[in-house]
């Protein structure tokens, strides 16, 4: 069975949880293993977090109960688009923002490279996306935004035969 979904949400840190739960629910009917599910959730979380904090520079909400960390600035309005497609047991995830874009993609993808060490970012985001998904593609133009495309083959395969 082929299936598609799209989710558009504000670039706020609270929505990271929403994004990964939505994707997990989207693939749930395939009976994925716990490991697969956790891989997908981690990769989605990384991509969405990047869009919010790097793409739009939204660092607030970076605390509990709505408290704002002193280093957190204003809210820059923006939307993150999450699109998922499931076809023949292959999951395609696209995370897109209209934020500031990435100047040097290969530099950004280097493990441990981060532009925000003061915020305790580890610089492992892209490394995790690469490790946990089968395929990763990054398109970005400075000033326009970034699109992350990830693909993963679900081992559990396609829809249970005979149910359609």
């Amino acid at each position, binding site marked *: 069975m082929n299936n598609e979904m799209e989710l558009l949400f504000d670039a706020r*840190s*609270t929505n*990271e*949880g929403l994004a*990964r739960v939505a994707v997990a629910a989207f693939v749930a009917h395939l009976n994925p293993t*716990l*490991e697969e599910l*956790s891989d997908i*959730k*981690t990769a989605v*979380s*990384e991509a969405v*977090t990047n869009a*919010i*904090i790097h793409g739009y520079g939204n660092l607030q*909400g*970076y*605390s*509990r109960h709505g*408290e704002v*960390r002193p280093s*957190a600035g204003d809210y820059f309005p923006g939307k993150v688009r999450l699109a998922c497609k499931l076809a023949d047991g292959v999951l395609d995830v696209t995370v897109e923002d209209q934020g500031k874009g990435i100047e040097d993609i290969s530099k950004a993808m280097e493990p441990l490279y981060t532009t925000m060490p003061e*915020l*305790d*970012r*580890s*610089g*492992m*985001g892209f*490394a*995790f996306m690469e*490790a946990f998904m089968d395929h990763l593609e990054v398109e970005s133009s400075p000033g326009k935004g970034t699109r992350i495309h990830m693909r993963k083959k679900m081992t559990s395969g396609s829809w249970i035969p005979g149910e359609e």
Partner: protein
Amino acid sequence: MENFQVIDNCLMVKLPEEVDHYQAGYICQEADRFLMEENVCHVVFDFEDTVFMDSSGIGIIMGRYKKIACLGGKVYAINVGRQIRRILDLSGMSALVEVLA
């Protein structure tokens, strides 16, 4: 729910169910407050309740490690399940941090 406790010279940090960027700021901030104010030498991260962690969690551990390692302190990760273990291994953190299942 996360919580912080000082036992002898160890800071115990109980991590929440989901460790992501949204939760990380508060945890770093609180942990650092304890490191500054109390006489803490080692940090123990307890993953008992944790079912999800992304690279933000690595940032938390790495940041605390940098702060105490130069003073001879050690970082421990306890109650580490399979998923969390994979993340720690993949990021190379298991070489710096004592990981206990």
